[in-house]
């Protein structure tokens, strides 16, 4: 008979066992957001081929929850800046960034986007971080798909551990 008399607390913990986890809200939001990244590919040059290779079935970026390329900044979470950015197109990139709804992240894909690459001349922006903030840089000219996926994982890591607005 004494076994049937239990405190309400004990009762609750037993009935919820295996059904509830406790965490921080930032962590759960980061977990959700990092696995549902809608991408805006801002593709201007040959790095685009590596982006396509990564996105297609052989390397399959969908495994990481980042399958959906949206060609509208309103519907995108991540801007992939893929290729050489000239001074002529720089204002367009800035507009795209401004139009992207929060939360948003920027990946600089390859040497040109990161620092101008081999082009040190009148035409080329020496790194997109002179125009917009960048979260992850991917090295390479162009980067192999493995490097791209590594960059994506680093971005996911960043999203998981950052502070979120909610």
């Amino acid at each position, binding site marked *: 008979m004494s076994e049937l008399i239990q405190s309400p607390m004990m009762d609750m913990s037993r009935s919820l066992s295996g059904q509830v986890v406790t965490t921080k809200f930032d962590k759960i939001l980061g977990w959700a957001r990092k696995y549902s990244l809608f991408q805006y590919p801002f593709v201007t040059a040959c790095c685009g081929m590596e982006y396509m290779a990564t996105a297609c079935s052989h390397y399959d970026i969908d495994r990481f929850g980042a399958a959906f390329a949206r060609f509208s900044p309103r519907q995108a979470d991540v801007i992939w800046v893929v290729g050489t950015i000239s001074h002529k197109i720089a204002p367009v990139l800035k507009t795209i960034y401004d139009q992207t709804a929060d939360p948003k992240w920027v990946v600089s894909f390859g040497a040109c986007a990161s620092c101008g690459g081999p082009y*040190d*001349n009148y035409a080329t922006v020496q790194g997109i971080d002179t*125009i917009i903030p960048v979260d992850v840089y991917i090295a390479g000219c162009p980067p192999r798909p493995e490097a791209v996926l590594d960059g994506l994982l680093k971005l996911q890591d960043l999203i998981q551990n950052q502070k979120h607005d909610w």
Partner: protein
Amino acid sequence: MSKFPEHIAIEKSHPTAVLDWHDRFGDRTLIVDGKQIVDVITLLRDSFGYNMLVDLTAVDYFPRRPRFEVVYHFLNVDSHARLRVKVQLEESHPHIASIISLYPIADWLEREAWDMFGIKFDGHTNMKRLLLYESFEGHPLRKDYPKTKRQPLIGPQN
């Protein structure tokens, strides 16, 4: 090395047009007086079947005088014959007659030469920059344009 038929024909009708010529490495080249360029190219197109303007570009030989060269590459699509025509231009106000009336494709090529080298093509009705933006000052493929000089539309200056 002997004169090729195009050269002989031009000399017959325009004795002062050809200033120099060569066929080094199999690339037959005529250096032509700029004032007679439209006549010469008309003759090449109509009498020798050079029906395709493959390329029109310019070269800056700074500090040589004359400083600029405009280069035309022609192809006879039927016989696969190729011919290169060059015109030398002085540094102050480099200009030459447009050949849009002969080859419509010259429109963008001449605009590119204006954009990059600042060579004016007389008779071109839309002589504005092709690749760069309107606010860009100077012509970046000129040898005296500083290599690292940038004119960004947004972001930090240089």
